[in-house]
């Protein structure tokens, strides 16, 4: 199963890309995806405990299940306003 991952702000700069695709195997949840991402992009590891994840533009939890074609976004602490 392939999901599209978008990265923003300091995470985008840390990973060196604004977007990537991740193959999560036959099934997977958000926590599993983060494991895979941190393996591919070790620079993300220090941020792992501080980021939120959105799936199809809705904030998700580590146990949220992913589906083929989902748009996942890594959301570092926001600073709008």
């Amino acid at each position, binding site marked *: 199963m392939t999901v599209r991952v978008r990265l923003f*702000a300091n995470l985008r700069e840390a990973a060196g890309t604004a977007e990537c695709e991740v193959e999560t195997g036959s099934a997977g949840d958000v926590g599993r995806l983060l494991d895979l991402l941190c393996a591919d992009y070790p620079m993300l590891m220090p941020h792992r405990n501080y980021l939120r994840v959105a799936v199809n533009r809705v904030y998700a939890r580590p146990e949220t299940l992913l589906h083929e074609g989902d748009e996942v976004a890594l*959301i570092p602490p*926001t*600073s709008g306003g």
Partner: protein
Amino acid sequence: MQENVALSAVPIQLSGIFESVRDPGAGGIDIFLGTTRKTSGGKEVIALEYEAYEPMALQKFHELAAEASGKWRLRKVTIVHRTGRVAVGDISVAIAVAAVHRAEAFEACRWLIDGLKKYAPIWKKELYRDGSEWVDGFTG
């Protein structure tokens, strides 16, 4: 309740914000403006750069406006946030609320900016003469 939400890559025009919430049935309009500060942690900021996860930010603006409209009797709500380069002292965000009574306009406007800061996927980078830094949202 009539709602206007937007991200803007160009300077926010206050006259347009006012026109968007002007309402002959409103008892009061409250407008919150965020403007960029000249100093941050002792460093001189020369400009700011805003990045947004645009479709989700717009969806959050819409959800916030809809939720506020359930809490207070609102006539019109406008939420506009800048993206891209913003000069020091310029408007980074404008939230305008026209309500039946002014107390509701104040309460809703304050609740909306608090919610935007917490939930809208928007990030600010401070540009200094000798570098730049993403702002830690926890200090906001």
